[in-house]
């Protein structure tokens, strides 16, 4: 299996790997280890409702290099953005960006699902 330069870099660095704890933190996950792909995001937000910004994001993943790279990229891109259910780029664009074989598109959907779950959890957290 050959990986693109970008995939290699994000996979090897996996800079935002880890977890967050404390107030203002929400967690979302998708997939399962048993099925071979599992991704989790922890998000911390700051700011007033209506003008909230993500101040920190971390990910965890049991997954192939493409999935880890994309999850790592998503977590890095997140800081400073508004917590929206849509990824900074959609999965098709991400598939092209990271040169992911089309048969592995499903794995990127796991990343998207985990992200959405985290954003949803954030909303719930805020509502509470």
């Amino acid at each position, binding site marked *: *299996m050959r*990986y693109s330069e970008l995939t290699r870099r994000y*996979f*090897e660095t*996996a800079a*935002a*790997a*880890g*977890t*967050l*704890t404390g107030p203002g933190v929400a967690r979302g996950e998708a997939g399962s*280890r*048993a099925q*071979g*792909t*599992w991704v*989790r995001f922890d998000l911390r937000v700051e700011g007033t409702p209506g003008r909230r910004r993500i101040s920190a994001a*971390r990910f*965890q*993943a*049991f*997954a*192939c*290099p493409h999935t*880890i790279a994309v999850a790592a990229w998503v977590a890095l891109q997140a800081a400073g953005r508004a917590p929206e259910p849509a990824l900074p780029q959609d999965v098709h664009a991400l598939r092209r960006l990271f040169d992911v074989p089309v048969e592995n598109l499903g794995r990127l959907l796991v990343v998207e699902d985990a992200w959405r779950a985290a954003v949803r959890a954030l909303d719930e957290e805020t509502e509470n």
Partner: protein
Amino acid sequence: MNAPAYLDYASTTPVDPRVAAAMARCLTAGGVFGNPSSSGHVYGADAQAAVEAARAQTAAAVGADAADVIWTSGATEADNLAIFGLAQHAKERGRHIVTARTEHRAVLDPCRELERRGWRVTYLHPDRGGILDPAMVASALCADTVLVSIMHVNNEIGVVQDIGAIAAACARHGGARLHVDAAQSVGKCRVDFAGCGADLMSLSAHKAYGPKGVGALLVSRRRGVQIEARQFGGGQERGLRSGTVATHQVVGMGAAFSIAAAEQEADGRRAAALAVRLRTGLAALGGVRENGDGARAVAQIVNLSFEDVEGESLLADVAAEIAVSTGSACASSSSEASYVLRALGRDERLAESSLRFSLGRFTTAAHIDRAVAAVTAAVTRLRRIAGVCATAS
């Protein structure tokens, strides 16, 4: 950057320089380049003499008669010739074949093809260590069983089957011929074709420091084994395998097998010490599972699964440091994890996270240390990313 340490000898070996030199003498105009079938002149006669010398070397290395050796393009062709050739020859006597789930695809796929054509095939389950109980083979034999095909050394986990006991079961049955895929055996353990009681045996040069693209099927004359040809033409190899014999290739195989037999014990001792070093080095990681019964395996093949690590990422992470095989689907043409490990009862995830380290003649302690360091770093990192020993970053 340094090239990764090569630890994939069970996939293929580099050609030994002594073998390459012997091959080089059979290529160009100054050398033995004639067609071994051209008996009308000295160029052909010299080539034929070289081919026969290689046949004798090959036979001697595996306890066979030179007349048993049918050159092929590799063990895949030998396996196909043995299975289809015997099935075709014996089809009036019976159409049942016994083999095992952990055989190489070069055995399983011909068996599947025969099933499509109306043969019946029994696929035996080995135990969790990968070993077949000879009694299980015996009880699978039916009145219409014509062939048993069992490998000697397994290519993924290295376990060695008790061919002598399986041959004895076939002998008691009377009608079933025994084919042994010994593609992985030469140089890793002793092979004694005549002594073990097999009827047919597949060999490959490129697993034993010979060239790719050449192998042999041993067809025991002493035991009166008969098979049908599958490739027709010039009538070479007793009519069983037509096609110009590639002098440099069989000379390479002869030289490689000769060296492999002579150096097998020394190679094995060195490999055993290196395998201990590898297992010990990795044990510290925890959650490391041995695939196959290591006590019944050749020293050169060490197959380990790493808990809580995704297979493709593991391979990608170590790829810059070591070249190994994996049970992961990503590295195979199929979309499933190793069917061999699955047959031992490993779940999909552990099969995916397996690495096969296969050691060889040119493996050094430094290579092993590099492997231990790379795998330790990768497993630790990936477990951390997966949150297995998670601490907040």
